[in-house]
């Protein structure tokens, strides 16, 4: 399956990436090559095969609903590039 420049730009937008015109050009070529290679999966008949998303038979992992120690507000904010001591600050949304 081939991929167009428009599709690459659409996917970049979905992924919240900004690509320069040069990057769109080279990514389109490279993605086309990689997706072309992946097309070899088309040769396998998988109609009755269940997909595998997890390799070990682990059921839902539950624990008791007990409060555990967690990061303090100051520790949680420490790596934030912009905060006001109480919350992370972002550009106005509304």
């Amino acid at each position, binding site marked *: 399956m081939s991929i167009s420049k428009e599709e690459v730009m659409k996917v970049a937008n979905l992924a*919240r990436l*900004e690509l320069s015109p040069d990057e769109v050009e080279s*990514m389109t070529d490279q993605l086309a090559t990689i997706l072309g*290679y992946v097309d070899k999966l088309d040769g396998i008949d998988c109609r009755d095969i*269940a997909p595998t998303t997890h390799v070990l038979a682990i059921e839902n992992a539950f624990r008791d609903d007990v409060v555990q120690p967690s990061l303090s507000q100051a520790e949680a904010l420490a*790596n*934030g*590039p912009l905060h006001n001591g109480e919350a992370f600050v972002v550009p106005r949304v509304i």
Partner: protein
Amino acid sequence: MELSALTIHQVQELLAKGETSSVEVTNAVFERMTAVEPQVAAYITENRDQALAQAANADAMRGRGEGGALCGIPLAIKDVICTKGLRTTAGSRILENFIPPYDATVMEKLQDQGAVCVGKVSMDEFAMGSGNENCAFGTPHNPWHLDHICGGSSGGSAAAVAADECMASLGSDTGGSIRQPASHCGMVGLKPTYGRVSRFGLLAFASSLDQIGPITKDVADAALMLNAIAGYDPRDSTSAQVATPDYTKALVAGLDGLTVGVPEEYFGAGLDPEVEGVIRHGIDQLKAAGAKVKEVSLPHTEYGVAAYYIIAPAEASSNLARYDGVRYGRRDMDANSLVDLYRRSRSQGFGDEVKRRILIGTYALSSGYYDAYYKKASQVRTLIVEDYKQAFSQCDVLVSPVTPTPAWRIGEKTSDPLSVYLSDLLTIPANLAGVPGMSVPCGFSGAGLPIGLQLQGSHFSEETLLRVAHNLELRLDIAGKKPAL
């Protein structure tokens, strides 16, 4: 021999006899780093002051009769594992200044033993790569041939161990990232069974494939490291509630009663004849040690890379959505809308390979393509799992090359991502099936580049892998060979 050149178990013996101290060993490692780091460039962040304090503490622990087998041992940690208070970059500009507020579970386990962390080592950005050429902070050099790659993504780990800049290292393996650099640098690399080691505090790349494991100078050290890090962790909901044995007990001489499977698909077109020769010689050694050798088939091996390059990027595109410039990491301060902030921070922070994989993953999961790509790849994954089940009904362990060729020259493949992806075709299937895999030094190419032999076993068969690896090591007698730096 220099202290820095010793293995963990050799240092242990000296420490036990009181013939050296952890402070002395740690200083020896830092002297070695000063001497060879300008050529090797294995480290992103050195941890000199803290490490010497940890070493002094380890000596005190030992004096009180406390500490585990790794007490006082200098280790290097791949820069994708969170270390509280010590910068953790994942090899990316986007995390250039990230100081984790907590330790990964494996770090807590190492600290409980009294291990010393001498620094954080280089890696491909977010563990995406096979040559460690995608690191934002430079490419480490193969200690055996400085103009060659050390492999990836745990390239810094393998280089630091091979260059005696630490006793051992922790890496991570999503599609071969422990085994492949271990092979290229002539070290022992062990990717445990999925779920054997907690992933809590490992910066996620592809959560259904990632696993932490050791890179060491010999097989006994791999057993010691696995003893320290294996086990159930309630903070990782995918970690397995399976009892952990003492892996050092697996190191027994002789392979009587064991059947080694040789998968024909791993010896196909594209395999370098020198690599094949070294691996066939290794198989002869296992036979001489008492193993039965049997041809087996894993017919879907050739589809592993294609399935992986849908599944891993799909998971990565979701996992890496968290790097948005808000809670941690790089932020574009001029953005004037939230979407702009995400877009600009991510575009400036991520390198080309990471962007490429995010795009592939987003595409594969996007509306209209999900069935054709992600679902199909997950079905092929089932076929690969079935291949292994079939093979392990006929043999105890699979023996093969780790990589089709020895290490390549730095820069040789940077313009061709697909050719780099294809270099992982022999290591990827183990991650898709979650089985343990190991690289053991087996020989050298004519040019003097190391070649590793790969062992794969069924889930939780690490003891079998270690036993086979130990016997190969005993017969080949190359474990002590050092690069001329």
